[in-house]
């Protein structure tokens, strides 16, 4: 290098210019400064000078490419090859639009768009596409970066699943708890927090939910466990549906099913457990009611069988022939069936006296001809009274149809009733026949009157008075209205021989 003797900067001398050319030739410079008219000095990179940028672009975690004005890809980086599964040679010279599924994204400078990048295995990858203009030499081109969104999407899906799980846990109507392996509660559903004696997270199960060991449920099974061993049991062993009650004023009246199951990670290793407390109070109540109903039904079936047996036996005694027996017995069974239907329809509550009379006398009630009159105040018969009264009225009706007012045209029956007495009200029911054949004493004696007397006396604690007046049978039945202490589940005394 020649040494300059000038003290102020001067334009490069020939030596400088020569040295510059030599330096460029030897490759020890990689950029030159040129004057470009009014724009002033410009830096021009010599060949290879963009190497650091090329390395940066090759190493970057996003896909990158450039394409020319005609859309032909000029360059792709390694990451884009990874994303598409194609080697660079297969991508360069392709049309940019062919990289995408469906229509290519409509690029705008410095705006990111989402698109589906096609892969060589016929799948597609969600990507974010960014584009910006660049110059290569004298021509313009477009620089594009593509960011893989699948990881982002997966993270979003995981976050959504997490939110969903949390929402299930929070909003479940069951009390759900997540326990760490040491037995401490890490998550609690809203319902669990409501049931707990104190905010449950951070406490052990036995601290937050002390069990009522003295209750009559299966809690006794757990009573011999200490609090610590119960917590360990819940955190480590699966078990299902142990009935418990909690030491709590509100929840203590309710029954819960306590269940626990291990919580496993991807490697099937236990990372804690899920404990649920399911409120089964209503279910237990329904079960108890069902058990009671079945027991009562058993009693009632036995009672009816006892009544049927008794009626059969006594009908045989008073029947002269098999034909008579069949006729009388089936009529009485019908009376029982009517009573039973009424009880079933009214759910064993009972029925009005007038409704019972209407049901029993139905075959003889006619819209055209009023043969039966009924008159009296509203009376609700108890379930216990329905069957004996139904049978007594059936006997009276059958007798009237065979021998009395209902056996001829123009015959009438007047049924009336009154309530007597104060708190312990009694019903006095009057049955009067008229217009029938002349009644001869003893015509309807036999099991009919015996049965009426038996059921009214024994089953209703009442009295019977039957008068065979020649102008028509007169019968007065008197019985207390109020249901006596006798339960309908007991066998009627009239059926006990």
């Amino acid at each position, binding site marked *: 290098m020649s040494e300059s003797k000038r003290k102020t900067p001067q334009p490069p001398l020939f030596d400088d210019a020569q040295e510059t050319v030599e330096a460029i030739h*030897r490759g020890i410079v990689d950029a030159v400064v040129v004057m470009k008219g009014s724009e002033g000095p410009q830096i021009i990179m010599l060949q290879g000078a963009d190497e650091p940028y090329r390395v940066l672009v090759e190493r970057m975690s996003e896909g990158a490419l450039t394409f020319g004005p005609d859309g032909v890809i000029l360059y792709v980086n390694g990451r884009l090859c990874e994303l598409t599964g194609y080697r660079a040679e297969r991508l360069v010279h392709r049309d940019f639009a062919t990289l995408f599924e469906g229509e290519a994204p409509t690029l705008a400078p410095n705006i990111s768009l989402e698109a589906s990048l096609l892969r060589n295995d016929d799948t597609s990858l969600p990507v974010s596409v960014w584009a910006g203009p660049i110059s290569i030499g004298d021509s313009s081109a477009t620089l594009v970066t593509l960011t893989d969104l699948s990881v982002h999407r997966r993270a979003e899906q995981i976050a959504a699943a997490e939110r969903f799980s949390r929402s299930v846990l929070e909003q479940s109507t069951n009390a759900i708890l997540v326990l760490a392996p040491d037995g401490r509660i890490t998550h609690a559903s809203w319902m669990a927090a409501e049931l707990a004696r104190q905010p449950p997270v951070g406490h052990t199960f036995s601290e937050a939910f002390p069990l009522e060991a003295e209750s009559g449920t299966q809690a006794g099974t757990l009573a011999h466990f200490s609090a610590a061993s119960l917590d360990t049991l819940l955190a480590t062993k699966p078990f299902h549906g142990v009935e418990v009650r909690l030491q709590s004023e509100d929840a203590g009246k309710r029954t819960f099913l306590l269940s626990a199951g291990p919580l496993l990670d991807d490697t099937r290793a236990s990372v804690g457990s899920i404990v649920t407390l399911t409120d089964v109070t209503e279910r237990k109540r329904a079960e108890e009611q069902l058990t009671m109903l079945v027991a009562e039904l058993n009693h009632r079936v036995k009672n009816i069988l006892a009544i049927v047996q008794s009626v059969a036996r006594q009908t045989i005694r008073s029947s002269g022939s098999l034909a008579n027996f069949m006729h009388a017995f089936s009529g009485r069974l019908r009376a029982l069936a009517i009573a039973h239907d009424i009880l079933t329809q009214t759910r064993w509550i009972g029925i009005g006296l007038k409704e019972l009379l209407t049901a029993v006398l139905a075959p003889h009630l006619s819209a055209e001809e009023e043969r039966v009159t009924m008159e009296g105040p509203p009376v609700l018969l108890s379930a216990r009274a329905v069957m004996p009264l139904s049978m007594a009225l059936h006997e009276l009706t059958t007798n009237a149809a065979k021998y009395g007012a209902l056996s001829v045209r123009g015959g009438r029956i007047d049924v009336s009733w009154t309530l007597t007495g104060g708190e312990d009200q009694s019903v006095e029911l009057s049955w009067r026949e008229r217009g029938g054949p002349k009644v001869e004493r003893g015509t309807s004696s036999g099991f009919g009157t015996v049965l009426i007397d038996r059921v009214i006396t024994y089953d209703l604690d009442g009295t019977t008075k039957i008068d065979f007046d020649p102008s028509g049978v007169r019968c007065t039945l008197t019985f207390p209205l109020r249901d006596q202490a006798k339960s309908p589940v007991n066998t009627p005394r009239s059926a006990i021989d």
Partner: protein
Amino acid sequence: MTEKDGYNLRLYVAGQTPRSVAAIANLKKICEQHLVGRYEIEVVDLMKDPALAQRHQIVAIPTLIRQLPEPLKRIIGDLSNLEKVLVGLDIRPT
């Protein structure tokens, strides 16, 4: 630099081109070996402001300018030839 025999050096580079990066490294090494405590370096990136090239009429990059001691001297290239740099900057080997 006010010290009488101090060296004030200005290196013109163009971003992170290989020769620019090499020149920075070589200059630092030479100064530490031969001008310990007697130099000041200023690196000018012409990629950021090409107009700065006019002050010393830079043509090729990298170029090193010895501003002090006078007279002004210029060395073009990546400063990989040690002997040439020492001669060019008029540094006597220590």
